[in-house]
């Protein structure tokens, strides 16, 4: 793709990313929200992460696949364990990546 078109695409991405970040703090920072809305908002961070994550773990080559050689799916277990044990963002990400890299090396997947 032409770099000029990529640059224009980036500008478009920047705009559609900034507006949803900006509008709520601009409009809502001076008023209080109903308690039910606030309770609902508390579920959003985990729901968003799950909605983005789970498809990358369960879908391979455009179909649902949960076989033993689906490394991303199974790497979730050590990644979660390290995260809960260490509470460290960095160690856990690196540990998860190391598991995938080592499994690929050993099994040649």
């Amino acid at each position: 793709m032409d770099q000029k078109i990529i640059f224009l695409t980036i500008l478009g991405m920047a705009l559609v990313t900034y507006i949803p970040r900006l509008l709520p703090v601009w409009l809502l920072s001076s008023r209080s929200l109903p308690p039910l809305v606030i309770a609902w908002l508390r579920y959003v961070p985990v729901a968003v992460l799950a909605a983005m994550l789970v498809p990358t773990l369960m879908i391979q080559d455009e179909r649902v696949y949960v076989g033993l050689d689906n490394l991303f799916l199974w790497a979730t277990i050590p990644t979660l364990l390290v995260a809960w044990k260490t509470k460290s963002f960095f160690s856990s990400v690196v540990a998860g990546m190391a598991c995938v890299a080592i499994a690929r090396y050993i099994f040649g997947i």
Partner: protein
Amino acid sequence: MLRDIVSSFNKDRCLAGVVRAFPIVLGYVPVGFAYGVLAQKAGISTLNTILMSLLVYAGASQLIAVGLIATHSPPHSIILTTLVVNLRHLIMSSAIAPFLKRWRKLELGTFAYQLTDETFAIHSTQFPEEMPSKAEIFATNVTAQTAWVAGGWLGVAAGQLITDVRALALDYALPAMFTVLLALQLKTYVQGIVVLLTGLLSVVLLRAGIDQWNVIVATLLGATFGIIIEQWTKKSSS
């Protein structure tokens, strides 16, 4: 605003903000690195790769965009995907807004620009405990974005040396980051149920052909389901 920040400038305060960003820095450098390598492989120029980190500054959508550029997707579908993926910031921004009372528009504008999943995770944990000074908050945000840009730049620089991203599991950096953020945020089991339901719903929607919208639709339904279970268990226990 600049004068305010400069006059309220206090080295110790800023340092505390920088230190608070450390866990993010440690996460952003490797993920940013993966982004840089993949962007380079997708044929995006160094300048554009860095500009995307400076202007868009959203990890997940940058990695998705790189994938779409590599497969020559049209710009409008890349921008639409970015919009949908980043609509979640609407909800994060709403959740953080009550803590930013009496901030000026320009300060809010600067804060919003650097609101990511990770800075949101840090701030939404910190703000209810003790509200840091503005200088401290901006120090955290600037440190985080600097790490993101630097990681991307390192990835571009190393990209020519790395022929196989799979061997280093760089393609797993993003799923790993999401998994860890989830693990660190899970506190109750209603949340656990929400995670499972939302995740599976997202898969089902995707397989049903509703790509691009699956994240936002699954999130809205999943969070709503969470609040229903919460209200229901409250009522049945009281």
